[in-house]
């Protein structure tokens, strides 16, 4: 027997005291669980190698496999994507210059990464369709202090790789891509990983390749790869502080097992995406952000735009969903240029960014979310759209934002 939607009146909504749709949280993290036997086989090798004094096993193997996956000569792992990006920024920033151009509508710790390595974030606008920094956004911020440009792949597509590459080349500025959300994608039939001077990825549990924790840099440059390895082992390079943050063997073993599963995982993600596409198709007030098959996407993130016809505010919607144990999240609700920072930054007015920061919601996805769950989530959203006016009034009566 199939699931029957149980909410008949708005009083049945959990935010107003009803029972939640789910008894366990449905997250917005990928949380892929690789085959445990594969993981244990890698781990066991590492365990016995460590005791015999043998070294350089699992981590080197992971780096080789990742380099091969991304079709790039070099991969250097770190203990997180955060520190991988810090190391890449530190190595690639033009000596003597201070600014790194980056979007403000991005990962909440992005500016801090620059701050740690002594660079000044110069926040740029994003394109309203791509949701990331394009050539015109970046070009407007380049000046005589620009040490580096950071291109960021958005959660549902690719950055303007060719445009940013041409701009960086023309201006003679190093270019790094934050490719954390685009592990699987391709650009002109080349897998992401070989663009710019370097690309940076995460092996965090919420990402496509789950290594518990971890990150890596891919590059075609042997000099950069050597410098990153030196940093990772604690050696200062050209007087700069070293990012002494190696990945552990246990995390490397997990990443290896996840990497082995990646194609199957993408297929499952695609099914989830298709379920959302079907379930949301009759909802007028929400727009599912679509993936382009040309990018060969990993279908990891599910994001909707809250349109003018939707009866609730974005915050009310997230609050209502969270009460149902649907762990929806606002998409970068506080752009970086609106935060207080403990280090210098350049914060021009960014009206498009500030508008977009109110418009999007990430919906549950990944291993812990089934198509049956998605059906329930979508039915709930249909109910909310239908009963929107009443829900809005009830929110106001209860003093919710």
């Amino acid at each position, binding site marked *: 027997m199939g699931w029957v939607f149980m909410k008949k009146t708005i009083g049945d909504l959990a935010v107003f005291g009803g029972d939640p749709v789910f008894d366990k949280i449905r997250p917005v993290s990928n949380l892929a669980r690789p085959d445990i036997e594969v993981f244990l086989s890698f781990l066991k090798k590492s365990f016995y190698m460590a005791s015999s004094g043998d070294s350089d096993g699992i981590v080197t193997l992971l780096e080789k496999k990742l380099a091969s996956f991304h079709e790039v000569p070099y991969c250097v792992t770190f203990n997180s994507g955060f520190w991988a990006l810090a190391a890449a920024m530190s190595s690639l920033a033009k000596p003597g210059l201070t600014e790194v151009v980056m979007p403000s509508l991005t990962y909440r710790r992005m500016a801090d990464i620059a701050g740690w390595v002594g660079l000044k974030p110069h926040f740029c606008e994003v394109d309203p369709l791509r949701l990331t920094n394009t050539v015109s956004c970046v070009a407007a911020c380049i000046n005589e202090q620009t040490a580096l440009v950071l291109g960021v792949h958005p959660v549902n597509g690719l950055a303007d790789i060719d445009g940013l590459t041409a701009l960086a080349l023309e201006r003679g500025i190093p270019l790094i891509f934050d490719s954390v959300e685009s592990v699987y994608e391709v650009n002109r039939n080349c897998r992401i990983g070989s663009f710019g001077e370097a690309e940076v990825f995460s092996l965090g549990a919420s990402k496509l390749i789950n290594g518990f924790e971890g990150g890596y840099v891919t590059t075609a440059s042997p000099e950069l790869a050597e410098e990153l390895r030196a940093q990772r082992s604690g050696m200062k390079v050209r007087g700069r502080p070293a990012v002494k943050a190696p990945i552990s*063997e246990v995390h490397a073993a997990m990443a290896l097992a996840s990497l082995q599963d990646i194609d199957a995982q993408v297929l499952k993600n695609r099914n989830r995406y298709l379920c959302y596409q079907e379930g949301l198709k009759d909802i007028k007030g929400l727009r599912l952000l679509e993936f382009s098959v040309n990018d060969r996407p990993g279908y990891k993130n599910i994001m909707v735009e809250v349109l003018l016809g939707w009866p609730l505010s974005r915050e009310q919607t997230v609050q209502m969903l969270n009460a149902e144990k649907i762990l929806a999240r606002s998409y970068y609700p506080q752009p970086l240029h609106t935060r207080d920072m403990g280090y210098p930054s350049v914060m021009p007015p960014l009206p498009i960014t500030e508008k977009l920061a109110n418009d999007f919601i990430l919906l549950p996805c990944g*291993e812990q979310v089934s198509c049956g769950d998605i059906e329930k989530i979508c039915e709930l959203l249909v109910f909310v759209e239908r009963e929107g006016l009443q829900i809005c009034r009830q929110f106001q009566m209860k003093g919710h934002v």
Partner: protein
Amino acid sequence: MSGFHAFQQSESGMDSSWMAIESVFRGIFEREYYTETGPLVRSLEQRLRGATGFDHVVCIGSVWVAHLMLLDALDLQRLWIAGPVSVHLQSALAFFSKVRVVTEASSLGAVAGHAAVCNGALAQDNPTEVQWALASPATPASSWFTNELHLESSIRVLDTSDLPLQTSGGADVHLGALNRKQHFRDLDGAYLATNDIDLADRLRTMRSSSGVSRLLPVKKTVNGRMSEAQAGIALLSLA
């Protein structure tokens, strides 16, 4: 510290060690918690509260990151270091070029007395002005804090990251390493223990914001998350 012991790594104990490790990971895969929101990290923090005697323990995925976090969270300008400087501290200090480091002159190959190192330069210094004292004790920490220095107004930090786990007598903050050379190379992991709830919340806010009772303003955040894997192996090493 009597609460800790190195997990057996003798040849005869290898297989039983492996079985214990395998069991830890089967549990993690079953629960599907992978990072510091999981039960093993919470359990480890609870165990370390008991073992260290501090009210608050923040587990961090990397000893080096733990040093960066503490240096940044305390916002110090002058640092007195008693005893040898740990490799992690030395590496972390490179990110804090404005910090004036004061240490024993003898450990720098200079004449007896106290010296300051600032941007590589060495000079005689007066240690009574320091804000933060850090001991890396070859001798018991308490002797550094009580006998060597007059430090009522300083924050006393005990850094045992290069040493076996031991008591933190006399310290306000204890920075310790986990998973040192046990089972796997580079598994890493650290903890910061303190009775200061503001400091603990600042550290948690910096780390990932998980477990924070109040989000406090911090200068910079990091990714300092400890994984369930790191916590699980560390728990195996606790008596």
